[in-house]
């Protein structure tokens, strides 16, 4: 059992508050992504769980045991660092074996685990190389193998893919998902990339300014953002917002339809981006910047005057002052 409980964890650095009383419950075997822009406190929270940073208040429990006062080495977890932190003076084999050696595993178990994880991450031909002789993607795989080799109850990952180029990141994302599903480890994954969070996680916690804005499945986060921030941060391009007497009408770019003239809102197209699968239009409607995502077969010239209409069932209402979602049933008509 390795469920994680974050209980009122707060962190301030001098006068600045990095985290404000964060509460989070993570089930055993669950994969949770901490998603947010840089400076939102997600890495600080991860480092507090790892024991690399000390919280100002609150507790962290793993499997019901309070580990707040334990040093990192006694917490029984593994971590993949953003810059991998693969030891440059050790061969790949010794890097993978490092955690087991530190925990005093016997040589038979070390050999078995190194073979197993190296196989899992396709590192067998590289075992006798030094990290400097590897590519970025290979080093990243060594960092994951080193973490999985100790068979941790909890795996922490701090933006593990952010240093890879776009194509490799896509490959590694799929690979990581497969490997982690097999390992069945409780995982906390920090990222600022919403595609990564949506693609990998069972649940996503969106952080903003040291606070959790919303926790939910990728689909809940995407389709039912709890706040204006979540709608505007998750999704590429993000949600559009139009003012409606004290409220905000939130609508995803793909939920806007082009309609006949005289029907719907007038929309002046400024920029057309043919992205292949989609054609992205950026323009002005009711004085607001609005993005419309159309099927890639549409051809619209820039400067065109169109009319758009939101699909009524897709509209999400938010309070204009608090930015919070208005529960269904109490919303006005569009």
């Amino acid at each position: 059992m390795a469920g994680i409980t974050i209980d009122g964890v707060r962190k301030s650095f001098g006068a600045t508050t990095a985290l404000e009383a964060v509460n989070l419950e993570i089930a055993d075997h669950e994969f949770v992504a901490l998603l947010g822009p840089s400076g939102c406190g997600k890495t600080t929270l991860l480092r507090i769980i790892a024991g690399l940073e000390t919280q100002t208040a609150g507790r962290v429990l793993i499997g019901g045991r309070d580990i707040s006062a334990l040093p990192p080495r006694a917490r029984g977890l593994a971590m993949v660092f953003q810059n991998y932190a693969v030891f440059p003076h050790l061969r790949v084999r010794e890097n993978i074996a490092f955690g087991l050696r530190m925990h005093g595993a016997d040589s038979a178990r070390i050999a078995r685990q190194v073979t197993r994880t190296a196989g899992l991450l396709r590192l067998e031909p590289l075992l006798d190389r030094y990290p400097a002789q590897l590519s970025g993607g290979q080093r990243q795989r060594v960092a994951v193998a080193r973490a999985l080799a100790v068979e941790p109850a909890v795996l922490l990952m701090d933006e593990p893919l952010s240093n890879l180029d776009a194509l490799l990141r896509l490959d590694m994302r799929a690979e990581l998902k497969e490997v982690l599903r097999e390992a069945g480890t409780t995982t906390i994954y920090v990222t600022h990339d919403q595609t990564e969070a949506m693609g990998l996680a069972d649940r996503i916690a969106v952080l903003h300014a040291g606070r959790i804005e919303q926790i939910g499945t990728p689909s809940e986060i995407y389709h039912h953002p709890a706040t204006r921030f979540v709608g505007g941060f998750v999704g590429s391009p993000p949600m559009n917002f139009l003012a409606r007497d004290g409220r905000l009408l939130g609508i995803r770019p793909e939920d806007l339809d082009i309609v006949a003239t005289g029907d719907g809102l007038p929309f002046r197209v400024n920029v057309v981006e043919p992205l292949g699968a989609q054609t992205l239009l950026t323009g002005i409607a009711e004085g607001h910047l609005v993005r419309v995502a159309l099927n890639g077969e549409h051809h619209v010239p820039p400067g065109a005057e169109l009319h758009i209409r939101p699909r009524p069932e897709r509209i999400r209402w938010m309070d204009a002052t608090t930015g919070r979602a208005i529960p269904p049933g109490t919303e006005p008509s569009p």
Partner: protein
Amino acid sequence: MRGRALPYLLVAPAVIFLTVLFFVPLVQTIALAFETRTGFGLGNFLRMEDDLNFHDAVVNTFRFVGLAVPLQLAAAMGMAMMLRHLGRGRDLVLWIWTIPLGLSDLAAGLVWLALLNDRGYIASLLFHLGLVAEPQSWLTYETPIALFAAVVIAEFWRATAIVVVILVAGLQLVPKEYAEAASVFGASPWRIFTRITLPLMKPSIQSALILRTVLAFEAFAVVIAIGGRNFPVLVSEAYNWQNFNQEPSVAAAYAVVVMCLSLLATVVWLWLLKTPAEQRA
């Protein structure tokens, strides 16, 4: 044309400086060391070796280098690690630690002489406190261990800071993430130090050891100030042969021996602590 010549022109002052002030005297010294009345040979080295003080000088030099350098390295490593854990005031502490570097080595030797001689501060203090019956003298040929200790302490005080500076610079090149990763994977602070920090510091430890060993073989002013003729080392013997015995060729033989030892020490450290390119941080 001017473009091609420019790099050579820019390098020329340094080359001329090194040639005139280092390379020529070096060749002259070596020539002098092998020059005898009958031509070239090992005569000067034999005279050097025949001298009463030669054996003591060799033993003292090696004991001095063998004790001072490891002590300095260990202390400097500890000091550098302490600095790493210091938040505010780190620069101030480093600055205070490096003050002895600003003193000439003769001045440093005299400071320790003033502290340690039979009418020095420490002896007077102990006498006034009634802890000793009469002022003690520690710096004579009758107290060789105390004298040796005093020389090592003075050199330790004077020259450890340069090792600290080199190691602090080296430590800053090692990202903290390695130590963090090691701690997450179960390493105790001591194991992080021995398994991660120390191996990654190898290049700067090597630089520090080369510098300190070469300079310790050449330690002179501190030794003369505290030990005088009671603590002969190779360099002070070279000085004595040159100035008191008026025998420049025997002094040159000593100089050649010291040079060879320095070169040997450098080669040993380069070989023992080499870091292949693929293992660098």
